[in-house]
């Protein structure tokens, strides 16, 4: 029993230490600030870590480049939110203690919705690279997106399939416990209905059952779907492709931006992805100079091909740089002053990045840029 006491005392001491340690921050601003502090939260650990790490790495590369250009200087910090709303708010607060002046919001949608409310409360401008749900920007005038909002992707996909007359019968498999996937599905289904596309099979899966897709594929096959719409990330899609192949079921596959990355999975048999179509703003195989340079640098630093998350984050930093330069923002401004400047800039400027040229933003914070229709041929993306 004495033992308990010791442990309890030790813990109380520990806790007290924690509180004291936490006291330092207090949002005090460094007077001699030379760089604008940009912070973002994202999953750096856990199952979604790949997206958070990609954003962190993409943004770091961009910050280094931008700082070398002269003009406005950035200091970038990413905190882990483990793809969880509660931890994202914690991470956001930790960044506030660090002195964050501009925010990159969160990488994923559910945490993004939670931190967007904080951004709005605190009047800290946010430009999220990849949190694509509408709930992220809805009702928040100072939260902007670099990626397409989910409904845009859903309706654009339906539009594309209808316009190109790719299919008469469409099957959909989506991830039921994922905000991104179910968000795209909902608008896809609505738009498809309006356009007279015939959705013959709709099935779902969850993180817990992300291994076996035979039932879903069988359902689509029996319903005679000649096109399968897969609004999901490439990890699950790769399993679907391989299991469909095993079953001898070969419809057209149509993906969204989450599908990007499938070709660069280590050990993936690119033949399986032959003929897969996807709407994506970014492809690592593009042959413009900027993309090439970015991909080369990313590969050199991290030994992997960057996915669209990294490219979105890279664009975020450049967009912020452009906005800050235009508005004459300086590092000694408060977050609120920067917030007002950024809101004005982002609703009026046009931005050219890796993920699309001529991008503009609506007052609601959603981006307008053209998604590129891509088809995979001989293991590379080809524009459709």
């Amino acid at each position, binding site marked *: 029993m004495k033992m308990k006491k010791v442990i309890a005392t030790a813990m109380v001491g520990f806790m007290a230490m924690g509180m004291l340690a936490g006291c330092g921050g207090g949002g005090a601003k460094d007077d001699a600030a030379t760089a604008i502090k940009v912070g973002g939260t994202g999953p750096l*650990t856990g199952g979604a870590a790949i997206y958070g790490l990609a954003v962190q790495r993409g943004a770091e590369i961009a910050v280094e480049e931008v700082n070398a250009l002269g003009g406005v200087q950035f200091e970038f910090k990413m905190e882990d939110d483990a793809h969880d709303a509660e931890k994202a708010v*914690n991470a956001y607060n930790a960044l506030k203690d660090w002195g964050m002046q501009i925010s990159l919001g969160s990488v994923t949608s559910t945490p993004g919705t939670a931190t967007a409310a904080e951004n709005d409360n605190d009047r800290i401008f946010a430009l999220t690279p990849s949190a694509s749900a509408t709930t992220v920007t809805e009702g928040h005038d100072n939260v902007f997106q670099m990626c397409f909002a989910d409904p845009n992707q859903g309706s654009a996909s339906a539009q594309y399939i209808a316009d190109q007359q790719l299919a008469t019968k469409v099957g959909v498999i989506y991830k039921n416990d994922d905000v991104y996937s179910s968000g795209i599905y909902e608008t896809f289904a609505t738009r498809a209905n309006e356009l007279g596309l015939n959705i013959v099979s709709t099935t779902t899966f969850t993180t817990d059952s992300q291994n076996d897709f035979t039932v879903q594929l069988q359902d689509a096959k029996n319903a005679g779907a000649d096109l399968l719409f897969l609004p999901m990330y490439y990890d699950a899609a790769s399993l679907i492709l391989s299991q469909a192949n095993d079953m001898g079921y070969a419809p057209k596959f149509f993906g969204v931006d989450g599908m990007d990355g499938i070709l660069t999975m280590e050990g993936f048999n690119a033949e399986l992805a032959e003929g897969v179509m996807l709407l994506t703003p970014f492809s690592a195989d593009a042959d413009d100079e900027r993309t090439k340079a970015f991909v080369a640098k990313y590969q050199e630093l991290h030994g992997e091909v960057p996915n669209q998350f990294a490219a979105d984050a890279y664009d975020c930093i450049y967009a912020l740089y452009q906005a800050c330069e235009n508005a004459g923002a300086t590092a000694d401004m408060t977050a609120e002053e920067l917030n007002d400047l950024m809101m004005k800039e982002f609703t009026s400027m046009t931005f050219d990045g890796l993920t699309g040229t001529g991008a503009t933003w609506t007052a609601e914070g959603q981006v307008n840029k053209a998604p590129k229709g891509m088809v995979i041929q001989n293991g590379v993306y080809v524009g459709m």
Partner: protein
Amino acid sequence: MNYLKNMNKTTRSNMVTYLMVIVAFVIVQGMIATGSISSSLKGQLVPICAYVVMAISLNLTVGILGELSLGHAGFMSAGAFSGVVAAQCFSQNIDNPVIVLILAMIVGGIVAAIVGVLVGVPVLRLSGDYLAIVTLAFGEIIKGIVMNLYVGLDAAGLHFCMIKNTLEMDGGKMLINGPMGLIGVPRIATFVMGFVLVMVCLFVIFNLVNSKSGRAIMALRDNKIAAQSVGINVTSYKLMAFVISAAMAGMAGVLFATNFSTVVASKFDINTSILVLVFVVLGGLGSMRGSIIAATVLTVLPEMLREFSEYRMLVYAIVLIVMMIATNNATVKNALDGFARKFSFKKKSEKGENANG
């Protein structure tokens, strides 16, 4: 005479626990007033309160009743989702956020208690690891149902549907949008309300433990057959503890949910249940004070480890393992006990110290 002395010791121990919570509350309030609190800690105050309530309520099931539950987050989920829907309805007519929150907590607590009865009646016939797996299963079922639930509110009232969003509403807003969870939650939870909830739950548990029912429950834990032989009704006492625990988890869920603008069903999965179990085991089975401290420390700890950046969760895992070994290994324990003797603390009487799992 002996009995009275024991009683006093227990009361004294309980008072220390109350006092500890109050002192912590006063210190934090002082820090808020003087502005010396970091944003990071400030943002965690309400979640800490919610986790503390989760921990002491689970301790009632695991420590006092002696049954392992791996589905405690399920009750939190039931409370959170029903409570927020209730809060949205009430806030149309009531302006005072405190009253709305209290009403929402009552609704959340009642719904969680009903779920607790539904789960408890069949489940409590089992014991040990089988009970653990069935509670885990119930937690997953609750998650699965909530994930497919659509609830909307318009002028005509509440609309419900399952699996597919087929709600026909004129205007109004979605409250629970299937897998996207709760959207636009009114953020009415405050640290003061969290503190009040912790105190209320502590009060209920301490009084329960020291009552006739509480002694019956602990008798069941220590020796079920002996307890049965003296006429203690196994099912009703087990159910009582289980349902009270569920109701408190439901209220904690409401507090937790109303602190964030969005909550998804998958937040309340087995990992959250296990997290709360870690608080309870680390704090000591049956020791409410231990649960409170462990819940607070382990909630703050990952935030303090942010300096380790990508090694953060690795360090957290190591700390967890080391703490478990330090508190449970005989050799380490003896060494620490010897160390403790030097300070000659008075022996505390803590109920259920040597509870079995």
